[in-house]
């Protein structure tokens, strides 16, 4: 992967992180669960907010292998998938804030964001519910002879629901163009998934159905992108479904107000050393990018190495912004998106009666 390409993936990961940092702040006190009470002043973002801090490389690496007209289905933890597929953060914020400009016109909130214009067919509040939906969308593409594929994201906890087995079996029987992606963050809400899962998890189960798989480090965006590209091209070539099992870790609690006191803090500390964004920064710096504009020159050994690599892979360190500048720029864009969303109007209460159904819809009684 060229440095330029990697920088682009880095930017998308930063976008997701910045988006979720702001969403997290705006949600504190917005829901009562996990022993946390709702604050007196209602939070701007209400209800359960599931954050994907630490898992950004999976969304970004997988979506890098997709075309604009490919589709994805997502989960309750779907902000990263939306952004990686090209959804606009300001309209996502508007949805989280319940505003009229939100992707779902304020009707869905975090767990239901969809952007059909970029092939994002929906987050979902029901675990594993996106799996059969992805399979059906792929069947529609195949039936019409289109070359589009569907990437289906789900968690490690979802593989213990029936729709996982049923959906994988179906996709294999009908040889459908689906790339299944298990985002294995080790937890299912407050439960360690390993304690509740027999066997080796998603990949092993898929192999039992004859579906080819790859297992990758889900915090290494290059590894995810490489594996996803290989599998996606096999799917696109008509080879039937494939499954990518990406091992990652959930940095935050299950929802934004969950302090995750049920897990060993040392486990989190170890995971934080493996932050997908920092890992990418390390690679970028090895390739000659500088951390900040004021930083001293990288040492000559790394410098010459990276210069050689840059010659082969793209623009050199002098032509690209420092990582700090990129970060600052992304933060500004996301803050601007939030400001824009905050200026969006509330939906009219009458909208509650719209889009229910054609016949007999939109009535009280």
């Amino acid at each position, binding site marked *: 992967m060229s440095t330029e390409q990697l920088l682009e993936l880095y930017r998308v990961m930063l976008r997701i992180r910045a988006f979720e940092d702001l969403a997290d702040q705006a949600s504190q006190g917005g829901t009562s669960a996990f022993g946390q009470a709702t604050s007196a002043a209602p939070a701007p973002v209400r209800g359960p907010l599931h954050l994907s801090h630490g898992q950004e490389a999976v969304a970004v690496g997988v979506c890098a292998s997709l075309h604009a007209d490919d589709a994805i289905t997502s989960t309750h933890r779907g902000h990263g998938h939306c952004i990686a597929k090209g959804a606009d953060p300001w309209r996502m914020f508007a949805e989280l804030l319940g505003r009229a400009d939100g992707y779902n016109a304020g009707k869905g909130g975090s*767990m239901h964001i969809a952007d059909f214009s970029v092939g994002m067919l929906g987050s979902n509040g029901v675990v594993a519910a996106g799996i059969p939906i992805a399979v059906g969308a792929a069947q529609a593409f195949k039936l019409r002879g289109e070359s589009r594929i569907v990437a289906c994201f789900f968690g490690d906890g979802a593989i213990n629901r029936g729709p996982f087995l049923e959906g994988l079996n179906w996709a294999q029987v009908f040889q459908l163009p689906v790339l299944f992606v298990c985002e294995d963050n080790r937890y299912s809400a407050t439960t360690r998934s390993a304690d509740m899962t027999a066997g080796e998890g998603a990949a092993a189960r898929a192999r039992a159905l004859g579906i080819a798989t790859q297992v990758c480090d889900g915090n290494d965006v290059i590894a995810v992108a490489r594996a996803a590209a290989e599998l996606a091209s096999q799917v696109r070539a008509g080879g039937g479904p494939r499954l990518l099992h990406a091992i990652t870790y959930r940095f935050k609690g299950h929802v934004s107000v969950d302090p995750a006191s049920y897990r060993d803090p040392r486990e989190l500390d170890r995971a934080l050393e493996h932050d997908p964004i920092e890992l990418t920064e390390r690679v970028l710096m090895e390739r000659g990018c500088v951390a900040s504009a004021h930083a001293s020159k990288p040492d000559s050994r790394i410098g010459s190495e990276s210069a050689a690599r840059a010659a082969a892979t793209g623009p050199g360190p002098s032509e690209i912004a420092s990582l700090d500048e990129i970060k600052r720029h992304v933060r500004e864009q996301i803050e601007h998106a939030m400001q824009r969303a905050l200026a969006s109007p509330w939906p009219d209460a009458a909208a509650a009666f719209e889009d229910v159904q054609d016949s007999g819809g939109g009535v009280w*009684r």
Partner: protein
Amino acid sequence: MSDRTVGGVVRSAPAAGNATSGATGVEQSVDLSCAEAAARALADAMRADPSVVTLGEDIGRGGVFAQYRGLLAEFGAQRVIDTPISESTIMGAAVGMALAGLRPVVELRVVDFALCAMDEIVNQAAKARFMLGGQARVPLVIRLPGGIWSGAAAQHSQSLESWFAHIPGLTVVMPATPLAHYALLRTAIESADPVVFIEHKELWTLRGPVPLHDHSAIAHAGRIGVAHTARSGSDLTVCTWSRGLQHCVLAAEQLEGRGVSVEVIDLQSLWPWDKQAVIESAQRTGRLLVVHEAVQVAGFGAEVVATVAEAHPEVKLRRLGAPRIPVGYSPPLEAVSMLTADRVVSAIEQWLGL
């Protein structure tokens, strides 16, 4: 929920539990939230009967609403069973456990996810006793937190009680106070048939007195099929359940100041339901308004109103439920589906031409 709302219910609630116990019952009462009362009921039932077990996702950490807090430490993982995310097997396995002599208490997170286990509830649990010619009993409780949990949107906010009330074989209980959570859950666990126990998510933190050591008061409050008159009145009867009680009691207080005397009946269970209490009150006041948070169309209010109409055509009848729309996320949309005291007041004002 506001203190005022809490106070409204707490002020009028003790009548149910303390009708027979008087001042001593109140003295012995422990102040508990609905979540604490339910956790306490389950713990007491597990202490009393080794065949009681509980199973569901995340209950080993107390459940997401803390309504299972402390149980794993006391009873161990054999009886407090953390499960995979496998709703149909959680429910199906509970049916098997019940057929094999245990008394499972099933946790399905929210009533919306009961839809992932509907075959096991409706085709298996509810019908086994009848279908198998009376050879089997299915003594289990299905705990389904229901109702609008503000900001949780369409897949986490539904009120589906009428689905279950429609199914022969199921008992349907909807507690409204900490005392009712405690007493009715105890009775539900002792029931020989499957009980759908729907707890309102916005009531978990509601506090109130529970006379834990007054057995007769608990037995009195725990009678399934017996309504509780939360407030007496003479001009109009309001029949409600679950969180609706808070709103209706507040509405009745507001209307009292304007010279309208409203009787509020908390049905407490939808099947069996206390027809006698509702009919007696409605006949006396001449008017019955049934209030529920669920969608009004084909809601349980229709059943109550139709039953009263068939028996006493002279009683004037109305229903107040939600519009037939999914619950929206944004506050102005969610508000359209939300039951409030103001909405109850204006329904009554309109009706009486105030």
